[in-house]
């Protein structure tokens, strides 16, 4: 399988009044064709900023300060705007968290879909309209012609997210970045959306980065999982490996925090403390202050280590089972 | 013979003047106030009359000094104590071509006092008068008592056409259909609030005006009016604000003309209430009204620095007043001079009257009626305060002011104690202010209608009444002067100054100033 996207040592910092926020601070990963990569982290971990960095959608005071993003072999980190514009929505599409907020409320669905095609292809409007209609059909929207004439608020949340997915697939992109696309949805609707996304990626061979805080979602969906903490990927590997045999204490803790049938009625594993202040990061391992395995050696930054084809940033990999 | 040739010479030169100006000369005049209708009888008010007199003639006209001159009547005289005979001008035609005769006069006199919805009719001038047609060019007007002011009264009434105007409504006049007169200009266009346009009447019986077209534009704000003149939007403006006179004088492109008006600015003092509402003791408590004492009134007059008012407030554009009309008007006294400014004398008089420490007083005045009215009130306040009469100043829009000043108290009496007002003698002679301001208030006879101080002196009343019955001009003049002197002696009212009106025109034009404050297109001459 070929690499669609290679991200190396990506750093995206925000230069605020209060100081520099290192939202993304050295992220590496690779996404291969047809593969789903789950990017997991809690709020503030920098997972969304990673997604926006790939698309070149970081606004001041933020910017990519370092690292490379190679898309289909070409370097796109800090590429000129026109070049990025050609990629966006065309080769790399994005799906956002809240479909209520992302669809422009005063423009009809057809306008918003057709413009996504016409921005990249010089084809008759009618053709673009037909392609939009077909795309809506593909994501399971009944009577798509009617829906095309509708305004976003006339559709339910699930419908809107289907529209967003259809729009993402309009130009047959090589990569889709989905940023918490189901967080705002109910369980049954979430299942529907994941179903459509899964179906389409399988059909088209499009690679996907699925950004979420919910380990359970990526467990069932992703081929690989990257776990982010405080701007860095702390653990990376095949889904089964990461979920079943986590190595990083943070991953271990995260998995332990998720309530499930076999822990019923017991106290949950608790990661003490809270997410670090992005303005005042601890030196060395960012997780050290909360880590049960931390030693004085943790105040140096852990290097990336490869263990069984997995990447890890930890001085003390947890080789023995999950804490419970 | 020489007389005739001169006349011809004048006539030809006039003709030549008229001929040269035939080439469409348009005059645009910025007015300070706006007429309320084109119906000459609708509203007896300065701005209305000024416009009406362009389109309509009167039997008797007034020249720029308000002296009576022949209009549509060539002559008038009393044929007995109670009857006046008017001989009408022959060969005059209305703008629509119909001839002018006695019928038009009779119908005018019938219509003028009684126009529907009229806010202020000409009734006052026609009351007690009955007109009678003797022949086509003779009209008799009768009164119940001897009435010397017949011609003055008649000089206010514009004559309308029997056929076109007499049965017409005010709206017909505004639309122009009924606005048919014999005057020097024909009705052109009337856009309320915007403009009034008139065309020259080429068949006018008198001197043909120099202007083929005249447009009047009401621009009420003074500075805007001046700006319009400076910007060249209008050729001439009336009512130049005193503040701008100096600058305009210095401006070579502008020609000013000034003339004293028939308007006196004066102070009325409460002389009928023991407890006057706006007079207080030095401690703020109620005291017996000191204004009833002639000494106090004279002291107040002495405390007023009339020259300062004229010089500082009016920027030199006014005359200090010592009586009710300026010199040159019928019935003024030659013996009266403006009261000398004498603050020490005023203080002494006050002490003599029993007010060595003065008292408290409020002066009330309008702020949008007379030239610089509020500032004058304030200046007077300052001056009185300096002699010990601690005066506060309250000015208000005339809409509020006049009603309160006339009958604002709970009993329907004049509300204020000490007020600033003005009086313009429409008739152009002294009986007008004497009758309305000085004579004892008498509702039934119509005397003292504006006597808001309620000054009352039987001796003066008698002189005034006698004058009003005296047809002989010389004798009447004497009586009027005498009444004036008595009133001033008594300090019945305290005159401060006479207004001087100013017009400004662009270079090459000049306006012949009028004492009645009217702005006539016919008065604008090319230099």
């Amino acid at each position, binding site marked *: 399988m070929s690499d669609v996207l290679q991200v190396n040592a990506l750093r995206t910092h925000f230069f605020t009044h209060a100081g520099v926020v290192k939202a993304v601070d050295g992220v590496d990963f690779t996404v291969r064709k047809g593969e789903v990569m789950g990017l997991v982290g809690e709020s503030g971990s920098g997972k969304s900023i990673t997604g926006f960095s790939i698309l070149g959608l970081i606004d001041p005071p933020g910017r990519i300060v370092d690292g490379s993003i190679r898309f289909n072999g070409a370097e796109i980190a800090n590429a000129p705007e026109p070049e990025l514009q050609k990629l966006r929505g065309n080769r790399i599409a994005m799906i956002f968290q809240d479909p209520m907020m992302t669809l422009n409320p005063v423009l009809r669905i057809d306008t918003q879909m057709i413009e996504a095609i016409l921005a990249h292809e010089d084809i008759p409007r009618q053709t673009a309209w037909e392609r939009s209609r077909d795309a809506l059909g593909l994501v399971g929207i009944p009577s798509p012609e009617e829906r095309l004439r509708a305004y976003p608020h006339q559709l339910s949340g699930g419908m809107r997210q289907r529209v967003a997915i259809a729009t993402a697939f309009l130009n047959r992109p090589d990569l889709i970045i989905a940023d918490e696309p189901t967080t705002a949805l109910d369980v049954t609707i979430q299942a529907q959306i994941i179903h459509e996304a899964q179906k389409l990626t399988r059909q088209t061979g499009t690679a996907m980065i699925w950004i979420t805080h919910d380990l359970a979602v990526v467990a069932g969906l992703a081929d690989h999982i990257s776990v982010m903490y405080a701007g860095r990927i702390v653990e990376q590997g095949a889904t089964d490996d990461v979920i079943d045999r986590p190595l990083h204490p943070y991953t271990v803790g995260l998995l332990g925090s998720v309530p499930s049938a076999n822990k019923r009625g017991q106290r949950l594993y608790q990661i003490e403390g809270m997410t670090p*202040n992005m303005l005042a990061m601890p030196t060395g391992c960012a997780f050290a202050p909360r880590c049960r395995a931390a030693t004085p050696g943790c105040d140096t930054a852990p290097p990336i280590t490869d263990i069984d084809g997995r990447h890890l940033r930890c001085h003390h990999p947890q080789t023995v089972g999950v804490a419970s | 013979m020489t007389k005739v040739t001169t006349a011809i010479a004048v006539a030809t030169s006039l003709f030549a003047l008229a001929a040269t100006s035939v080439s469409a000369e348009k005059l645009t005049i910025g007015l300070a106030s706006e007429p309320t209708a084109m119906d000459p009888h609708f509203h007896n008010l300065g701005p209305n009359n000024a416009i009406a007199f362009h389109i309509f003639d009167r039997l008797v006209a007034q020249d720029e000094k308000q002296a009576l001159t022949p209009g549509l009547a060539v002559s008038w005289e009393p044929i007995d104590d109670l009857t006046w005979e008017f001989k009408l001008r022959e060969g005059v035609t209305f703008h629509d071509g119909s001839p002018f005769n006695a019928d038009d006069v009779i119908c005018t006199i019938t219509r003028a006092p009684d126009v529907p919805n009229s806010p202020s009719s000409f009734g006052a001038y026609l009351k007690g008068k009955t007109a009678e047609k003797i022949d086509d060019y003779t009209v008799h007007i009768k009164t119940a008592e001897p009435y010397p002011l017949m011609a003055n009264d008649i000089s206010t009434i514009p004559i309308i056409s029997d056929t076109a105007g007499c049965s017409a409504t005010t709206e017909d006049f505004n639309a122009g259909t009924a606005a048919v007169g014999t005057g020097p200009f024909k009705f052109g266009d009337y856009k309320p609030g915007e403009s009034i346009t008139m065309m020259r009447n080429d068949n006018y019986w008198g001197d043909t005006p120099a202007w083929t077209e005249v447009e009047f534009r009401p621009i009420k704000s003074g500075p805007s009016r001046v700006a319009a003149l400076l910007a060249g939007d209008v050729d001439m403006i009336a009512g130049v604000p005193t503040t701008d006179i100096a600058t305009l004088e210095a401006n070579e492109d502008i020609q000013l003309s000034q003339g004293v008006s028939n308007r006196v600015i004066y102070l009325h003092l409460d002389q009928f209430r023991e407890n006057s509402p706006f007079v207080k003791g030095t401690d703020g408590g109620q005291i017996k009204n000191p204004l009833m004492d002639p000494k106090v009134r004279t002291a107040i007059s002495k405390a007023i620095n009339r020259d300062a008012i004229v010089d500082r407030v009016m920027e030199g554009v006014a005359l200090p007043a010592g009586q009710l009309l300026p010199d040159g008007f019928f019935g003024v006294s030659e013996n009266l001079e403006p009261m000398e400014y004498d603050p020490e004398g005023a203080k002494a008089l006050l002490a003599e009257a029993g007010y060595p420490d003065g008292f408290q007083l409020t002066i009330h005045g309008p702020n949008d009626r007379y030239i610089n009215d509020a500032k004058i009130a304030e200046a007077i306040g300052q001056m009185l305060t300096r002699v010990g009469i601690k005066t506060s100043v309250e000015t208000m829009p005339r809409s509020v002011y006049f009603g309160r000043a006339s009958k604002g108290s709970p009993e329907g009496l004049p509300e204020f104690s000490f007020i600033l007002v003005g009086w313009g003698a429409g008739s152009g002679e002294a009986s007008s202010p004497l009758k309305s301001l000085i004579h004892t208030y008498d509702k039934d006879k119509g005397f003292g209608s504006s006597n808001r101080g309620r000054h009352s002196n039987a001796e003066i009343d008698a002189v005034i009444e006698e004058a009003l019955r005296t047809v002989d001009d010389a004798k009447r003049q004497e009586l009027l002067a005498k009444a004036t002197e008595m009133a001033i002696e008594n300090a019945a009212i305290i005159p401060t100054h006479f207004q001087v009106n100013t017009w400004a025109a662009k270079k090459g034009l000049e306006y012949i100033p009028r004492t009645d404050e009217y702005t006539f297109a016919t008065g604008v001459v090319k230099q």
Partner: protein
Amino acid sequence: MSDVIAPETAAPAAKVETPFRRFVSEFFESRIATVALCVLGLIILLAVLAPWITPQNPYDLAQVDVLDGRLPPGSEAFAGYTMWLGSDGSGRDLYSAILYGLRISLSVGVASGIIALAIGMAIGLLAAYAGGRTENIIMRVVDLQLSFPAALVALMLVAILGKGIDKIILALVVAQWAYYARTVRGTALVERNKEYVEAAQCLGLSRLRVVFRHILPNCLAPLIVVGTVQTAHAISLEATLSFLGVGLPQTEPSLGVLIANGFEYMLSGRYWISVFPGLALLFTVVSINLVGDQLRDVLNPRLKK
């Protein structure tokens, strides 16, 4: 993008960061607003100290002499002091008149602002809390009031009520209370539906307590913003009314009266009579508006990152 910055300031801070302190430090981030506040402070100070720092009491007719009228800046008055800004048509020293005028303009603005705020706040809170028909009626009245230009309402009222500071304040209050009522009601409605109000209900706290202790303090921020803007507006409106001849009395001039009086001198080259009060008005209103602008930025949660 809640992801961008998570301001976790729980790390022990040197001192407790009260909302007020935070507000103050944010306010002074803008240099323009800081300058404006200083200018405003200076203006207020000048106005307050007017009787002690002016050579003349322009309201005392015994001290005003018409013979001093229309003197250009720098002239000497009869009483001996120098009129640095010249005098007006009645002989008032403009420097003194402007400071006294500021007193009036500011007090008219502030008084009408405070009264309108109090009334508007009470009515707005009542509407928000009562709901139903009461709210409906109140809000219809507010809508109607708002659909009329304040200038027109004030103009009519002053025409009806007559002159005087009290009357103009009353007119301005009537013209402006609705802005406050709408603002309070809008925020109160939002606040009322917040969970902390439900929590207070759950805790059995009385209605009055909930309204005044919980909802009201949270409505203050937008009210302050509206208040500053409306105060500036009131000052300007008073000047306009005075210009139209229905404002304050001639002898106790506010800035508006001074400008209006000077207006007639403009074309005659006596610029100072109108220009200096005009500048004073301008500085006052602009600085209030600038302060208000910054308040809006600081207090508006929508612009917060």
